[in-house]
Each structure stands twice: as C-alpha cells, then as structure tokens.
C-alpha cells in the first residue's frame, strides 16, 4: 500500500481538479475540508500550510460569492497540484453579482488595505489583504471577456523548504557557536 502510494506521489504530472459550487456560503465548508485533505495527502506541504490554504480558499470563495456571482449562480474552483513544487488555486466568478468589481478595482482595494493597520471597529477587509496576500507567493486578478474575474494564487514549496533549511542551518550555527 505504502509503496504504491509512494509511486503515485512521485509522478511529475500535475493533479488538476475543478469544482463547481453554488453561490451559498454553506457549501464552502465542504471545499475547505477538501482543500485540507488534498494538500495533506497529495503534496509535501506541511500540515500548517494545509490549514493556511484552507483559509486562503475559503476567503477567495467567499469573496467570489459576495462580489462576483449572484445568488443561484455558481463559482468555479480549480486546484493544480505539483507534489514537490507548488499548489495553484484559481477561483472564477461570472460577474453577475450586484457588488461586482473589476480586477483593477480589487487590486487597488488590496493595496490600500494591505499597508494599513486595521481599526478595531473594521469587521471586513482582512481576507484578501492580509490572509491571502501573506500566505501566497503569487496573487493575480484577471477580468474574463464574458464578465467576471479569475483570481489565481500560487504557493511554491521550494521557497518554504529553502527558508526552513536556512533557519535550521542558522540554529545549528548558533548551537555550534555556543558549544565552542
């Protein structure tokens, strides 16, 4: 079982999964569970990053439901996993929502919010500007010609591994220095 699993995991071919979701917040809980399982079971990302991506996906889906697609419509979520390299997530709305925004407008909002300290009384605004921005390496918004937006986020495993390695080398260096 283990060797078969290992053989499957070692494939270089990306795993691509697309889910279409009705625009109801309740269904996003299922996508969160799926995200956690997918990252834990098919990538080399740590459990901490699996939980982080659960939040990233949740925030992107909620954003698409609130601003992108009207009630009764749908959003599309695509996961592209390369086991030892990266995870990419795309969330696509149809631009039918009453509060719809263009890609440039969302980018402007994020820039404004990312730089400032939040007042205690602000309930909204931390999702994209703090959580998604902080926990991803790439974040892009693209207007679809037929209406709607595609939000694409990507996280590279190599960057995390390099940081962890540097950190452990630095710690090991400190220990050696103390011993000497």
């Amino acid at each position: 079982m283990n060797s078969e699993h290992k053989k499957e995991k070692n494939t270089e071919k990306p795993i691509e999964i697309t889910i279409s979701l009705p625009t109801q917040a309740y269904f996003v809980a299922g996508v969160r569970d799926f995200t956690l399982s997918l990252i834990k079971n098919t990538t080399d990302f740590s459990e901490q990053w699996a939980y982080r991506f659960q939040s990233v996906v949740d925030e992107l889906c909620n954003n698409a439901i609130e601003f992108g697609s009207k009630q009764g419509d749908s959003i599309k979520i695509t996961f592209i996993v390369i086991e030892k390299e990266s995870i990419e997530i795309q969330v696509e709305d149809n631009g039918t929502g009453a509060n719809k925004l263009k890609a440039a407008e969302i980018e402007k909002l994020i820039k404004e919010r990312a730089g400032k300290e939040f007042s205690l009384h602000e309930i909204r605004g931390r999702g994209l500007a703090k959580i998604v921005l902080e926990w991803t390496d790439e974040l892009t918004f693209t207007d679809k010609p037929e209406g709607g937006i595609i939000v694409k986020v990507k996280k590279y495993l190599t960057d995390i591994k390099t940081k962890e390695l540097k950190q452990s080398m630095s710690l090991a260096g400190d220990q050696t220095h103390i011993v000497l």
Partner: protein
Amino acid sequence: MPTPVTLTIEDVQGDANILLKIIKIAGQLDESNVDEEAKKVYELIEQNPSKLNLILDLEELEYMNSKSIGYLTDWYGKVYENGGKVIIAKAKPNILDILEVVGLTQLIKNFPTVEEAKAGLSQ
C-alpha cells in the same frame, strides 16, 4: 443552512469585583454562521456595559474566517473601551496562526488553560 457551530456563554462566580464571562465556541465559524453567532456576544456586551471581562475558550474551535476575526477585534475594542479585558484560552495552532497573520495576537493574549487565562486578567 449554516455550518454547525455552538457559542455558549458561562457566568463565572468568584471575585465579586470582577465581572467575568467565559464564551465557549465549538465547531467552525464561517460566512454561513458568524453573523448570527456574533449577535449573542454583542447582546452580552450591551447587557454588561462596564468592566466586562471575557475569556474566549477556543479549545473546540476548528476554523475561523476573516469576518469572525473582524468581530473578535470589534468585541475587544468595545470591551476595552469600557474598562474590561478580552483573553483567549486553549486555541488550536491553526487558530493561533490565523490570528497571528492578521496581527491580533499582539492585542489579545492566548493562554494554554482557562485557569491561566483567569490569572492573566489581573496582569
């Protein structure tokens, strides 16, 4: 249809000079349920406008989204303005991680037990 979550408020008897309530949250706080659950805490704050201390027991909280973090900061602001404190107890690592990324752990302390959180109120 909301995601399952429970928010219960418990009175704590003890020091007559300290008004303390423990809020236990279990399950997942998300877009489907957080507005409804938050009302209970706002009612509690309105009923106890002065020197209310809150310990949020998050041992059984599995998930919280950005909006629920927004409510938490708002509760903190309202309680703090009126001379009270808000403290977190027993939060899971993933909950602490998301609170940290938005900078909330600088404002609200987390303690590993409710007893330590109670002691933390006097610090």
